[in-house]
């Protein structure tokens, strides 16, 4: 393997600064003790982190996003596992089409999904409900769940299954005792990626979220559209901290580059 030259390293340094600078700006501002946007030049303060608790709107929105993410990614994975087995194991007419259907939400601009769900939920009378936004998120995160489960289904050796079947295990037992444990990393990785995608989603949710089902990113968007203050920076810093923890977890569980290739 050849080494990088000086110019490469300078380029790399500038690139990393470009990537990290806005994130550091958020973290820095969140530790200010002043009442306005400024750098914490005279000592770090947790003032704005304490202030968050005085805004129940953000706290409620956090729980909302958490429940929503858990519900949507669990339903998505439950549907994705049999679908991925169908696509990965069987050679049937329309296989490509089925795959295209499950990946289609990636191709459709989020704003189109947003207006479509809004109209649909209005027509069927579940506009502004938790069920409505959950179903919308299930569709949104399904591609990630299907891709990651599918990757582990196609990568999995089949001999243990055949051995179990030969020894008289029923289909269900083979699935439960052999297949499921073997594809578990894919299921867990898919669930987590689906959860993160749901938790961060703004563009589609902004159309379907009512004041009662306002998710955290949507609430943050509305706040930033009005005013940018250290409070929103403090909330963002907490979110980033949580994301870094999840990232490490995801890396240990599945390998981050593999997961993120699924995201692209």
């Amino acid at each position, binding site marked *: *393997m050849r080494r*990088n030259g000086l110019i490469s390293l300078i380029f790399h340094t500038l690139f990393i600064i470009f990537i*990290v600078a*806005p994130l550091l700006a958020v973290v820095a501002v969140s530790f200010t003790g002043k009442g306005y946007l400024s750098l914490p030049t005279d000592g770090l303060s947790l003032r704005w982190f304490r202030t968050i608790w005085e805004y129940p709107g953000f706290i409620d929105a956090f729980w909302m996003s958490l429940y929503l993410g858990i519900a949507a990614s669990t339903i998505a994975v439950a549907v994705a596992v049999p679908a991925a087995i169908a696509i990965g194991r069987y050679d049937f007419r329309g296989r490509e089409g089925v795959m295209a*259907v499950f990946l289609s939400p990636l191709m459709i601009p989020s704003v189109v999904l947003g207006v479509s769900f809004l109209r649909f939920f209005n027509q069927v009378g579940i506009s502004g409900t938790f069920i409505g936004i959950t179903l919308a998120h299930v569709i949104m995160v399904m591609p990630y769940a299907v891709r990651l489960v599918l990757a582990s289904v196609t990568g999995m050796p089949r001999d243990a299954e055949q051995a179990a079947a030969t020894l008289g295990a029923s289909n269900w037992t083979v699935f439960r005792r052999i297949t499921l444990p073997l594809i578990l990393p894919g299921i867990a990785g898919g669930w987590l990626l689906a959860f993160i995608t749901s938790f961060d989603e703004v*563009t589609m949710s*902004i159309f379907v979220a009512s004041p009662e089902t306002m998710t955290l990113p949507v609430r943050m968007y509305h706040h930033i559209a009005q005013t940018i203050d250290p409070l929103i*920076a403090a909330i963002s810093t907490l979110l980033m901290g949580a994301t*870094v923890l999840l*990232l490490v977890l995801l890396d240990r569980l599945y390998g981050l580059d593999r997961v993120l290739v699924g995201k692209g």
Partner: protein
Amino acid sequence: MAEASRSNAPWLLSGPGLVLFAALLGTPLILTVILSFYQFDYSIGGIKPAFSFENYRDVLTDPYFHKIFGRTFGVSLIVTVFCVLIGAPEAYILNRMRNPWKSLFLLVVIGPLLISVIVRTLGWALLFGGQGGISTVLQWLGIVDEPVSLMFTMTGMTIALVHVLVPFMVLAVWASLQRLDPQVEDAALSLGASQATVLRRIVLPQIMPGILSGSLIVFSLTASAFATPSIIGGRRMKVVSTTAYDEYLSTLNWPLGAAIAIVLLIATAIIIMSYNRLIERRYARVFE
């Protein structure tokens, strides 16, 4: 893979998902297409279910909408070009690093994909303001004399979008670099090729599929981006997504909003499909 099967097992297994998608994605899209042909009645402030092409005529002929669509796809193109120019070299450099630096910097570069777009955009809003970091640095360097703000400018919007989307480009190029055999590079070098020749003749052709698929992702995500253009661009720099949002939630003209969204969907689909065909024709063998 795959046992060839005439049984209906695959349909039973994928059935629940397909039903879900037909009901919750197919139906809403059809309803939106129908809605886009309806009229908004300003006198009653409601939707008049009378079929007409009025909304599409507005979107396709009004210079106001031309400007917005032009800006959206213009920004998408610029952002894509910048992502190629900085993302592809960065992926190449990352790939030549040794561990633990390699894993560490890969995490730093692609990790932000998992951080909310809102948070990343907020960071740029903080840096772009008249009192923000960039203005301060530029003044300190003596490049400008007074505070400059990149908020609500095309430049600001482009920078923030490149930041949000460049990890996708690094990932795509990274993936194609994994298939590249480093010995080919060494062979070329030992046969007397210059570093520049190796890059141009050996590396570039092999990572081209990665660059092309990365461009596709970056372009389509920029064309439909909402939060970043809305926060950084504001009302001065409206794009298609923010315009559709305003029609829906401020003006309440849902049929027009629906028509804008459908035109965006079709325009993006046409661009993606023609680009895909171009790629497939040129890179039929290397592209999986």
